[in-house]
């Protein structure tokens, strides 16, 4: 089998060309101007432009709030599912994941239709509903996975030693589910922060998120500025995942990730 080492060469070349090189191009474009000279102008421009800055901060806010709502709604759901009989639980989890098979644009437009149908005006409310609606399953699934793996003996031992149900929940169940919570947070926060098109559809173009700012700049031929904004987003995402994995390095090793 030893000689099969060479079989990795085509893929390594592929990765170099289609993964590393494109990322390098983002960095290259971000730090150069139209004629290819080094510049920091794009970052200064971003800092000076209140509108882009505002969208950026607003997007982080939306992502944080969406993640918080998903966690608040998803944790109890995952907990209830994990306490169900295994067969029923499996079916239920499937039901939660099933809507994901429908194209997310169609689902988003259906949410818009639902709001129209109920005569609820589109705005911030519909934005958060749509976001939570789209990403809630990503929160429930990893938490459910972690909770389901919890060793039941630990809970029984705590009960035998006189812990109240409340103590069992907060001192045993919750700490043991942190790997699931960590990957759930990542799986909601990351896509929301970079989402594009959902917000516009849900608010009839009234609210714009950072993903759309990126797209608009690239589409209007502002490649360098667009690349600089992409780099900023990339840094933000790298930072979040670093924070997340730093706080939960041990947890991640225990396999919270699906």
């Amino acid at each position: 089998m030893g000689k099969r080492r060479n079989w990795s060469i085509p893929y390594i070349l592929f990765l170099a060309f289609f993964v590393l090189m494109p990322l390098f191009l983002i960095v290259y474009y971000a730090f150069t101007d139209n004629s290819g000279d080094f510049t920091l102008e794009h970052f200064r421009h971003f800092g000076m432009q209140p509108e882009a800055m505002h969208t950026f901060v607003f997007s982080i806010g939306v992502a944080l709030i969406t993640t918080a709502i998903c966690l608040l709604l998803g944790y109890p759901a995952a907990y209830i599912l994990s306490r169900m009989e295994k067969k029923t639980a499996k079916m239920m989890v499937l039901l939660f994941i099933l809507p994901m098979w429908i194209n997310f644009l169609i689902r988003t437009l259906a949410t818009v239709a639902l709001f129209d149908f109920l005569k609820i005006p589109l705005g911030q409310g519909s934005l958060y509903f749509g976001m939570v609606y789209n990403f809630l399953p990503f929160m429930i699934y990893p938490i459910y996975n972690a909770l389901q793996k919890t060793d039941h003996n630990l809970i029984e031992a705590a009960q035998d030693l006189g812990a109240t149900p409340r103590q069992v929940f907060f001192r045993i169940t919750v700490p043991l589910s942190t790997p699931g919570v960590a990957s759930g947070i990542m799986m909601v926060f990351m896509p929301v922060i970079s989402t594009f098109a959902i917000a516009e559809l849900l608010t009839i173009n009234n609210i714009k998120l950072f993903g759309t700012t990126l797209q608009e700049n690239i589409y209007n031929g502002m490649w360098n500025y667009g690349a600089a904004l992409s780099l900023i987003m990339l840094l933000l995402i790298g930072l979040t995942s670093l924070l997340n994995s730093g706080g939960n390095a041990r947890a991640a090793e225990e396999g919270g990730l699906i």
Partner: protein
Amino acid sequence: MMKRILSNSYIGLLLLMLYAPILIIVIFSFTEAKVLGNWTGFSLKLYTSLFNGGIHHSLTSALWNTLIIGAISAFISMFLGTVAAIGIYNLKSRTRKAVQLINSIPILNPDIITAISLFLLFVSLGISQGYTTVILAHISFCTPYVVLSVYPRLRRMNENLYEAALDLGATPFYALRKILLPELRPGMISGFILAFTLSIDDFVVTLFTIGNEGLETLSTYIYADARKGGLTPELRPLSTIIFVTVLVLLLIINQRAAKKGS
């Protein structure tokens, strides 16, 4: 008892929230109204006009493009990813870790970053965008998943089997086909399915690499449609059909798994 009713109704409420929009689509696929939410009496007209094509020829061709791009990308990804997994498995520890790290970049990257980076690659090389660029882009974000699903099979495999086959006179190719391939097949199949699903569901990367020659996939079609201010009514029956198909498939798979388990 009370607790149980409460928790069951909580799950019920969440499911209702998740399914309400889908139900609306399914219900309104059985009426003719152009605008979603208007009920003008029961009718199957949207279903027949979806299949007859005609005016909505562009929708059918978008659907075909989606399926073709999905099939080609998934197939190439499966092939490339399997060969790569075998190669990576045999690499020296340090190189292997490095390759695995790069392999995880497309998985961790948000799709808009992947999309913009590939867009910059194609424009700076002056490659005109169309079918080929979309497929290349899809291969680049699908193959890592194939590698990840084939690799564990290699680790679990008994290497001696392969050596034994060679000792008994099998040519390397024969041993590959008769020993290695059957071992890897489940991983390859799940990798293929994953790649296909990711490809047909993709929107952002496709939008950035599809160019402006009029090529459309289902996602870009819907997006363009939505920006014009409304959904083509035929998308309702189409989504209904997709949803019911997936539902039935999953139920069958689940039933079979349950039987096997018991």
